[in-house]
């Protein structure tokens, strides 16, 4: 049975660090919501997509420890993610979704 002696948090982050990450996430979320009230013009779509990606990566890297963990975990997870993105974008393009 796995013992508790070896933990990922040791080379992960402190609780204060987690709170800081959460504050950053909250700030980005506020910015995201602001797009609903303020007109961002042509920046609207790219800004939202970028903010979404940043939030996603932050949660995965820090809260889910992927940044500090073995590369194999990142590899299997991002393999699924990237495959999903590519396959479904191709499928949607055959419906002329993006044109």
């Amino acid at each position: 049975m796995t013992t508790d002696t070896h933990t990922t948090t040791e080379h992960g982050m402190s609780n204060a660090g987690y709170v800081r990450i959460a504050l950053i996430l909250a700030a980005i979320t506020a910015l995201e919501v602001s797009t609903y009230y303020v007109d961002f013009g042509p920046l609207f779509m790219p800004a939202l997509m970028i903010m979404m990606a940043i939030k996603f990566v932050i949660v995965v890297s820090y809260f889910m420890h992927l940044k500090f963990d073995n590369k194999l975990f990142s590899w299997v997870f991002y393999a699924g993610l990237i495959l999903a993105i590519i396959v479904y974008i191709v499928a949607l393009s055959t419906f002329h979704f993006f044109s």
Partner: protein
Amino acid sequence: MTANTHADEHGALHTSTGLSNNKLGMWLFLGSECLLFGGLISTYMLYRGRVGAGPRPSQVFDIPFTSVSSFVLLMSSLTMVLAVSAAHKGDDRNTYLWITVTALLGATFVGGQVYEFTAFYNEGMGFTTSLFSSSFYVLTGFHGVHVTVGIIMLMSIVGIMKRSKVPGSKAETVEMIGLYWHFVDIVWIIIFTLIYLIPA
């Protein structure tokens, strides 16, 4: 969860990669879940404009309300990670505390979703009203079921831990549930942007 790996006194795992079976299995499962939610999101994207005689997305969505419930779910990720951190330190009291808070925040989110669905229904958006409504309810409903399963797991693990019945490592079990919980959160990060914030 099965704990099949063994650690020597230095804590190194006796597996070929030195990694825990449970954790590797969980990450594989989450990789697979990407394809599941990807399919549901794509279905919604394809059908979001097909509203028939029913309301359009922008007519029913209540962005301020959903922003708040999204924020609640996001913060539950913080409390979850604090629970994992406490579990790794062997601090049972704080582990219980943060797990309970996480479950409550999750329940708040699900409650909000129930309220939202009821409101949509009253505005004339039933499950079969249009392709938009069906695909919306299927996607967000699937996510809601995932959150609910997460809440059940969180409540169960507290009960099981209090009776000291966790086979294997407590910290790792909490960490596993944590990974699942964060995944549900990142799926919502995507749903919130793609479905709610980008108008069809």
